[in-house]
Structures are given as C-alpha cells and as structure tokens.
C-alpha cells in the first residue's frame, strides 16, 4: 500500500505520469478502431435479441431429471416452435420458446410440466407479446435522447460547451463499444441489458465529470501564466485524479462483479446476470473513455480557442528562450493538481512570481 500511496503522491506532484494528452492521437486511433469494429460487428452479426424483444415465452423449471437436449425436444414438440434450453445452477432448466403467443403459452406450459415431470405451478413463466420489446426499446431510446440533451445542457452550464461536447462523444463511444461487445460476443439482449446500458450513462459521465471538475479548477487562471499550455494542464488533471478514477472504477466494479458472479454462477441466467454484464462492460469502457478520450478531446477543442492558442505560443516561446539561456525548463516540474497556479506551495512559490511577472502583461494584451 505504501508503494501505492507513494505512487499517488508522485502522480499528484507530477513526478510520474502518463502523457495522456500528448499521446491522444494513439488513443483516438485505438478508440476509432474499437468503434469501427463494434459498428461492423453490429452490422454483420446484429444483436442477439432476447425473448423479451421478439415475443415468446421463457419457462424456468425447478430441478428436473431430463437432459438439456431432451428438454429441448420436449419443448419443441409441445410448442411447435424452436426452443433454446439452458441448464441452471439449481439443476433446473431455462427454456425459451420464441414466437409463442401469450394465449398459446399456457397450454405449452401445462404440456411442458407434464412431460418434464414437474408440477405445473412450479414452473415460472414469462410470456411476452411481440410489441412489448418494441415499447421497451422505444422508451429506452427516448430516455437516452432526453438524458443526453439534459446532460449536455447541464454540463454546458456547469462547465462549458466544449466539455459537454467531449462528454457526449465519450458517452456515445461507451455505448457503442458496449453494444458492439454484445454484438460480437453474442450475449443476449434483454430488458436487463437495457437497464445496465442506461445506467452506464450515469456512471460514465460521473467519472468524466470528476476529471472535468479538476480540469476546470486548474485551468481557471490559465491565461495569467505562461508556464503551461492547456493540454499540459489537462494532462495534469487526468493524472492527479487518476488514483481516484482507478479507485472509483474498482469500487464500482466490485459490487457489479459480485452480482455477475452470483447472477451467472448461482442463478445461471436472468435479470441479475444481464444487468451486471452490461454494467461490467460499460463501466470498463466508461473509465477508459473519461481518461483517454473525454479530457484529451476537451484539450483539443480548447486549443482552438484564440486565447489558448496565444497562450500556447507564449509558453513555447518562453520555453525556447529558457532553453537558449540554459535554464532548466519549467516543464520538468508541474503545477499543483489543484491547479492553484498561484498557490503558495513551495514549488510554485519559487517559480510563481517569475511566471506571474512575465505572464501577466502578455495575458492582458
């Protein structure tokens, strides 16, 4: 732990750190590649929609004596439709029959119970009409749309529009990746998956917002100094909140992992499993995007601003001059994570006045 603690301290002081912003093109590339793969996977393989979206029935039986293939035969015979049978951790069976109308399902349930040698009333049944899934999906899309609009508005007010745009891109990125993973791996999409997916919205942004918050604070007086470019400040923000980002992701993933373990291991399939699976994938994507995509994107957008461009010029010019004089480049040290550029902390106190002295006049031009 002490090592980890030290790492935290060194990250904090900028003694170590990864230059996320400078290497952003690599990560953009990686993300574009993943996104393209996801989209291709979606286009080619499509999503494996569950019964809830297609209409049909899912029967869950208590422990039965027959094998999976036997159960499948029985189910297909009873229903006259294709059946998918999974064995559950409890020894029971999960039998999915697609295209079964809710009225027929009753009869099929009775027959199934008889053939499998279990009580009719001990069979759990989920019967879904064909239009239900469509309704859920429509609502989910509406929810997604409304949420995105609200969040963009909120972030634009609380931070600025550039951050809102970057957050939105990161959000779309996360969802695309999650959906792509579902298409490529062929996981079944159920309402549980949709719940998970929609939760990712909140989580992905949650993470991003923390980094943005730190960035906003550090870049507050950015034009009044000439030591750092916006990109560098952004990078420091990522690094200084890195420990928190990692901790948050771990802490968020741990309960989800518990759910996944229990949902998948004990119950075999169902709501718990579906929610936790999509959460797991989405959370991982969300943590990645808030660090590698969202903040570098903000830096990119910001660097287009004339003020920030000018700052960059000044900073680079100053560094060139310093290099010519043989002075150590101030870039070797870093600003406080809190971004209190004029903070009285010793490191800043040493260089601060100098930076201020030279930076201000230009800043006020």
């Amino acid at each position, binding site marked *: 732990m002490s090592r980890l603690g030290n790492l935290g301290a060194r990250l904090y002081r900028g003694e170590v750190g990864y230059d996320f912003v400078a290497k952003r093109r690599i990560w953009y590339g990686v993300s574009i590649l993943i996104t393209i793969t996801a989209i291709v996977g979606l286009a080619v393989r499509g999503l494996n929609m569950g019964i809830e979206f297609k209409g049909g029935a899912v029967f869950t039986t208590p422990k039965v004596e027959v094998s999976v293939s036997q159960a499948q035969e029985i189910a297909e015979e009873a229903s006259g439709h294709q059946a998918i049978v999974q064995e559950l951790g409890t020894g029971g069976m999960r039998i999915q029959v697609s295209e079964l109308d809710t009225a027929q399902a009753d009869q099929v349930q009775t027959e199934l119970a008889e053939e499998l040698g279990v009580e009719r009333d001990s069979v759990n049944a989920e019967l879904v009409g064909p239009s239900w899934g469509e309704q859920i999906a429509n609502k989910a899309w509406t929810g997604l749309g409304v949420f995105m609009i609200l969040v963009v508005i909120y972030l634009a007010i609380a931070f600025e529009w550039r951050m809102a745009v970057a957050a939105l891109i990161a959000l779309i990125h996360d969802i695309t990746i999650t959906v792509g993973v579902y298409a490529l791996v062929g996981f079944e999409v159920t309402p549980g998956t949709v719940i998970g997916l929609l939760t990712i919205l909140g989580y992905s942004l949650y993470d991003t917002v923390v980094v943005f918050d730190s960035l906003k604070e550090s870049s507050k007086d950015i034009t009044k100094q000439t030591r750092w470019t916006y990109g560098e400040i952004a990078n420091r923000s990522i690094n200084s909140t890195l420990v928190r980002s990692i901790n948050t992701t771990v802490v968020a993933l741990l*309960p989800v992992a518990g759910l996944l373990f229990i949902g998948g291991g004990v119950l075999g399939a169902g709501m718990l499993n579906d929610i936790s699976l999509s959460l797991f994938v989405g959370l991982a994507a969300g943590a990645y995007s808030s660090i590698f995509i969202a903040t570098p994107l903000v830096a990119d957008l910001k660097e287009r601003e004339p003020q920030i461009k000018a700052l960059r010029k000044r900073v680079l010019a100053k560094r060139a001059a310093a290099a010519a004089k043989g002075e150590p480049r101030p870039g070797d040290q870093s600003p406080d994570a809190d971004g209190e550029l004029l903070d009285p902390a010793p490191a800043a106190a040493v260089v601060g006045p100098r930076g201020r002295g030279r930076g201000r006049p230009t800043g006020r031009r």
Partner: protein
Amino acid sequence: MAAPNRGRKPTGAQGRPGRSLVLILIALVALTGGMFWSGQLTPRLGIDLAGGTTITLEAKNQPGAPNAINETNMNTAVGIIERRVNGLGVSEAEVQTQGDRNIIVNIPKGTDSQQARKQVGTTAQLYFRPVLAVAPGGPAGEEPAPSPSASASGEPEDGASASPDTATEGTPESGAPSAEPTASPTTQGRAVTEGLKAPAASPSASASEEPKPSESPEPSASASTDPADDQASADLQKRFTELDCTDDAVRGTLGDGVKPGDTTIACGTNSAGQWEKYILGPAEVDGRDVDDAQGELDQQRGLWKVTMEFTEEGAKKFSTITSRLSQQQPPMNQFAIVLDGEVVSAPQVNQTLSANAEITGDFTQESAQDLGNILSYGALPLSFEEASVTTVTAALGGEQLRAGLIAGAIGLALVVLYLVVYYRGLAFIAILSLLVSAAMTYTIMALLGPGIGFALNLPAVCGAIVAIGITADSFIVYFERIRDEIREGRTLRPAVERAWPRARRTILVSDFVSFLAAAVLFIVTVGKVQGFAFTLGLTTLLDVVVVFFFTKPLMTLLARRPFFSGGHPWSGLDPQRLGAKPPLRRGRRVSVPTDPKEA
C-alpha cells in the same frame, strides 16, 4: 446543486460537527421509529421476489378513435380491472397505470394466475340477455326449483327449451306497450319502467339487428326436430342443475368460451345478496349499444334508480327485446345485464322501451351508481393486449431474493475490503457512512411500501447494489482530496477543512449527473427499469445527505483524535506514506502567507 461554485471557506458542519451528527441520528431514529410504528419492518417485496404473477397490459390503438388512449380512459380501465381482479377474491392485488399506455396488474402468489389472466385481459363483455330461467344459486337437487319469487309460472325446464324460440326466431310481439306503470316488487327488486316511450320497431327490422349466432348450438326453433340440439339443451339443463353459484371457482370458469350468441348459464346476486343462477338466451344488446348510464336519485319518489341511454342502433335492439319480453310470463319477462359472465342485474320488463330507460328497485346510492358505471363502462373503454405475463413461483422468488442479498453482501464485503486495504483507518469512516446510508435506504424503502406502494423487485435490488459504488465513491473523492492536502504538507485538521469545499463540489456535480440519469430513466421508461431507476435515484440522494451530514462531521471530529491527526501508520493518513513534502519545506512555508491567493 447548480453550477459548481467555488466555496473557499469551509462552511456548514465545520464548527459544529456534533450537531450534524445528532441531526442524522435523529433522522435515523425517526425513520426506524416510523418503520416500527407502521408495522412494516421489511420492504414490501415485488412479485419477482415474493412470487406471483405480473401482467402488463398495453392499450391498443383503435381505428377511428385516435385519442382514445388518454388518462381518463386508462383510469377507468384500471378501476374496472381492479374490480374484476378483486372479484376473484384476491387480496392485495395491485392494478396501476404505468407510462401512458400500460396497466400493470400484480397478483400475489396463491392465486390462480390463469383465471386472473382471463379476467384481466378480456375487454368488452357487457351483454343484455333474456332470462330463460332463474333458480337459487346453490347446488340444486334433481330438479331446479323455480325461483320462488320471480317465476310465478313455468318450469325452468320449459324455459330452457321454449324461450330460445322467441329469441332466435326473432318474432317479438309488436303489441302495444302495456301501460303498467311501475316496478313490481320482486326479490330481484328491480323493474324497468319506461323513460321515454317510443314506437316499437318493426319485428322484421329488429330481427336483423340481433346478433346471429353462427355456429353455436341453438336449443331453439329446431329443438324439437334436431336431436343434437336437443342434446345440447339437455346438457345445458344438466349443467344448470348442477351449477353451484356459491363456489367461487365454479363461477370463475362459468363464462369461459361462451359466445354472445350462445344460450348459457350464469350467476348473479339478488338485492338481498344471495346467489341466484340463470339460464340466459343469446345476447341481444351489448355494452356498446349503451350510450350512457348513471345512477340517480328519483326526486319525486326519493328512490335511487339507474337511467340508461342507448345509441340509435341500441335503442332499436332494446325496444325489440323489451317489447318481446314484456309479453312473457315471469321469469321470462326479465332481461339480465351480464358483465363478464356474471349477472349484475336482472330487471323485469313491463313495457316496450326504447332509447331511454330506467331501472328502478331497491337500489342504494352505491348500488345504483355501481350499476350505472357498469352499464356505461362495463366494457373497458380501451382494448388491451397482454404485453407480458410473468409468473414467478414463490420458490424462485425466494431464490432470487437470496441471490440478490448474497450478491449485495459479496459486493459490500469486497468494497469494504478494498477500502480497508487502501484507506486503512479512514475506511472506518467510510464503512460507518455506508452503514448509515444502508440503514436509511432500508428504512425508507420499508416506509415507502405502505406509503407510495413501493415494492422492492429484483432490478431495485440491483440498483441498490450498484449504488454501493456510487456512495463509496463520494468518500473516495473526499479522502483523496484530504490526502492531497496532506501531501501539500498540511496537518490533518486544516487539510480536512480545506479539502471539503472542493470535494463537496465534485460530489454534488457527479451525484447530480447520476441523479439526472435515474430521474430520466424513471420518468421515461416502463416496467422493471423503473424499479431500478427509483432505487438508484433514492440512494444517490441519500448519498448526498450522508456525506454532508455524517461523513464530513465525523471526519472533522475524528481529525481531532491523535490516532488520525498524529498520522498513525494505520490511520491511512500517515504523511510519510502519503509522500508528503519534507518537513524542511513545511517549515519554510510557515513564512509564506497561508491563505491561498486565488485570483
């Protein structure tokens, strides 16, 4: 929690951490007390955890009525479905709208789900049928005893075979309405009197209006010639004889598969609340023919009555049936108003009636208004389709509950473990805060059960588990801030206060986003997603409460303890481990003004 504001001076709990702690303690005690007071010690469980059946109905668009799916119609439908479900003797069944076009029916375990589904899903089932025979509702002996009151003459057996003649031949007498003025007191206690007199429609015209049974056996005109029909009629007679209206299960299945054109048997209660059984002819008027109906007080006589208005077509049909029935002997001069297979009223007809009619008898205000509602809305105002039906056995429900709890326990244990390893002594504060948060969530959930009908379902459990992460994250944000301040070389107490305003802002902003997601989900989505969104939103709110009123004050208090302020290696705040700046520099910084200059 709008735009994050820079709070420079730590405010709030700094000076009086004890007060906040006491406040939250009071809140906790109040919540727990409320929980015990309401007697609801556990959150109400949803169908998927307790077992039972959930039926989701989706209103279908009807051609020609684009705006039919509106709040009024949905609420009316809920009321009717509720009555139907409760008619099954189901206690605690829940019928509620969800979204703008769905009705959710939750039926707890122990109810025949198939029967319930039939009751719930079906739509238009209000019919006016001629009464062929009446008998007391109990299981009869060999021969059904004629209803003592209603049938002055005519054996039910006769009625069964004879009256369908009149129904199907479509030759109601077109005789002048008999001018008998009012109700004849029967045990049914109801009689139709004339509202507005209208000339009877010609027999032939009205005959064509009558629903023509297509393939149903007609124990009718051909009864004497066709042995098959004879058989059917005898079967019906036999069933009638055996029918026991006092048996709920029998009644529930009675109306199954009966077509409007069939001659059938049915049950109903008379005004004294006793069951009676009927043989009924083919339906001649249905619920759609009734334009409007209501229970009103007859000012002149001081009696409650039900007035009906028919549609144009309905009026024709109704005058046909009444003109015919008024010529019959009791009990065949009655028509039965049959709702969902059950006779809700069986008034006698004394004259031909038309567009407006009223039913009088010993109604109470309630029964008159009820009948009025049934007549006007008896058919659901909308047609519904079963969007999904989920039946969960109590066994699976229990298993899912257990699995959810185990998953929660594992998740919580892992988080606690991680916190202890990473934050050491600070984890104590985090764990206590998590516990407070958990206790508040639990009690509020338990209280919301009776309060707003909140039921804990599996997605809600998932939401609560996922929320562990969100709640723990707030502590992480704060702790990391404190550690950053210590790395700056500050001692703990100022570090705790300086870290707070910034951590607070971050927590508010991120919790706001999370809450926004939950709120949008809750408002826009349907079904299980709502349960999830609700818990997520609730826990996010509680997270803010706990961090503000518990974690921060506790931190302030504990920062005074030597264990933490001294930077004990196990406190999680050991400056050396955190890599704080060397004391040499710290000494130097004393000369620097400590108040940060923030331009």
